[in-house]
């Protein structure tokens, strides 16, 4: 099993890598689509802004290749947001893997939504296998996605409800950071590597 972690300048790349190593998984950091050969699963990490991230994914050629992949792909935080059609952040067209768009929180609550919040699991999936209902995960984001209910595996509430875990076929995503969410975050990373 070889997990490819896409390097497009997101600063949590190494944290995801540390998480995989701690789980005993091997991973390769890949910077060009050609390096996807021999990779069994892909993680698209994400800390940063949508505009520059899409620019880098386009430049490296990943933007064309990612939507066509048949192997399991996990988008984390911004990595998940980039899977939608459009992001309000920098008003940028995204990968259009998932229907829907990314919106900014319009709330009197503090933005970014930062800290530990619960996930309400609404649909079964190998990704969330063994994770208890209402488990806490670590979030850091100012934007959230809107997509069709059929793709939502888990929801979180911050003024409004937003999708925290999604799946469409072989594409998975979490709005929280599994690599920073302690026990249950590591469980989700492990599930992605072994069950998805």
């Amino acid at each position, binding site marked *: 099993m070889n997990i490819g972690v896409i390097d497009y300048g997101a*600063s949590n790349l190494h*944290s995801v890598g540390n998480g995989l190593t701690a789980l005993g998984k091997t991973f390769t950091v890949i910077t060009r689509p050609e390096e996807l050969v021999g990779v069994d699963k892909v993680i698209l990490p994400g800390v940063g802004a949508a505009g520059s991230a899409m620019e880098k994914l386009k430049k490296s050629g990943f933007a064309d290749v990612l939507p066509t992949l048949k192997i399991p792909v996990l988008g984390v935080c911004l990595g998940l947001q980039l899977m939608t059609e459009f992001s*309000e952040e920098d*008003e940028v067209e995204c990968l259009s893997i998932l229907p829907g768009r990314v919106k900014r929180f319009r709330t009197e609550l*503090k933005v970014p939504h930062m*800290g530990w919040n619960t996930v309400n699991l609404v649909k079964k999936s190998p990704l969330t296998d063994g994770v208890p209902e209402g488990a*806490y995960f670590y979030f850091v984001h100012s934007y959230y996605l809107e997509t069709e209910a059929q793709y939502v595996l888990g929801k979180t*509430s911050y003024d409004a409800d937003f999708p925290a875990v999604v799946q469409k076929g072989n594409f998975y995503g979490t709005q929280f950071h599994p690599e920073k969410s302690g026990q249950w975050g590591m469980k989700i990373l492990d599930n992605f590597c072994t069950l998805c």
Partner: protein
Amino acid sequence: MLVIPAIDIIGGECVRLTKGEFRSKKVYASDPVVVAKDFERQGAKLIHIVDLDGAKTGVAANKELLLKIAKSVSTPLQVGGGIRDAALAREFLNAGVARVVIGTKAQTETAMLTSLIKEYGSARIVVALEIKGGKLAVEGWQKTLDTDGVDFAKKMKALGITEILCTDVERDGTMTEPNYEFVRSLADMSFNVVASGGISDMKALTTLKGIGLFGAVVGKAIYEGTIDIKKAMDALKPASHLTKRIIPCLDVKDGKVVKGVSFVDLQVVGDPVALGEKYSEEGADELVFLDISASKEGRETIFDIAAAVAKQVFIPFTVGGGISSIEQIRRLLQLGADKISLNTAAVQNPDLISDAARAFGQQCVVVAIDAKKKDGTYKVFLKGGSEETPLEVVAWAREAEKRGAGEILLTSMDKDGTKDGYDIELLQKVSDAVNIPIIASGGAGTLEHMRAALAEGKADAALVASLFHYGEHTVAEAKEFLSARGIPIRV
């Protein structure tokens, strides 16, 4: 979403019209100042005031009255009606009006809009989109233009407008229901939309909130008593399960965790990675490592610690102490730190905050403030509390937020190491002044002190050192205690 009560003024009196027709005028109160004060008392966070004489004639007949209201209440005001030139807009904005609404002339005076945005920021310049059958209505809604509302909004977007006040003229004052489809189309264009017209009950407010609007102007429904401002705001109060955070703090000197009273008399309490792992297992929500090494060689060890912690601890952690350059920040983040904390360097070079936020995102920039009360005011201190600055704590916290700080780590130098409890007054002052999370630090001696900091002090997180390091309490005990007392905690 804000519930925004409206005051419409004709001839100095507070009135309501139906569908914008002047002959339908109903006078509700003779003194709009009294009405504004009443809205303020009921807890309104923004009050919408329209000079209807101005809207109709283009002459701001009630200007002095509007300025008087601005002086009489501290609630932010959104003012419109007859603002057709930049000079009048500036006069209102300079007098403390939070937002000016530009109507009729907006479509032709684009240079005015762009220069106002440049001078005051887009959040204070609101473009009124008044719709009658999908077309723009102008001049107090007496006329309709052959301009499509959505096309007009696109033009405004291109100019840099972010705030739209959308009024459906055919529904205004009718107490029916708002034009949900049209405001949704504006919200989908990423505008901060305030809806107005036909909002008569809680159902309408709830639906508008669901669409993701910035606010809703309520007029007749408040005057007629079908919507109560306070009740509406309570009902729409944002719900969140986001928890307060418990953060063990590890002061690191030459690679070892130490603890002392008011930054002196340091004692070694353990190995950073082992302690970090232990706290993480006990349920700590985050960790903070503050490097207090004096020597250059000592300071180098923090990079090794960051790398080692990142490999073994899978909760977020912050590294601080002596960080003064973008290169150091990049190195720490690449090694696996989630946030970096800036203290002295941020005061000496505030651009470092903005540069770091731009390069790595606001979420990873923590600004640490060491505060000490001097002659009744809180002052910012540097270099571990040894150097006084002329900076006032609240003003500096605001400045840090403006520059892109994602969090404030607020340490009371008076309380640090005393175990007397956090400085609640200091926490409240800063919490009320900024809209980013506050981490309370300095003075935790009991679990009750932590509760007080998170409840009365309104802090988002509590930083704890000796209480945990000396084994008086475990993180798990602290969380159980707080959770049992109604503090939202991850247990």
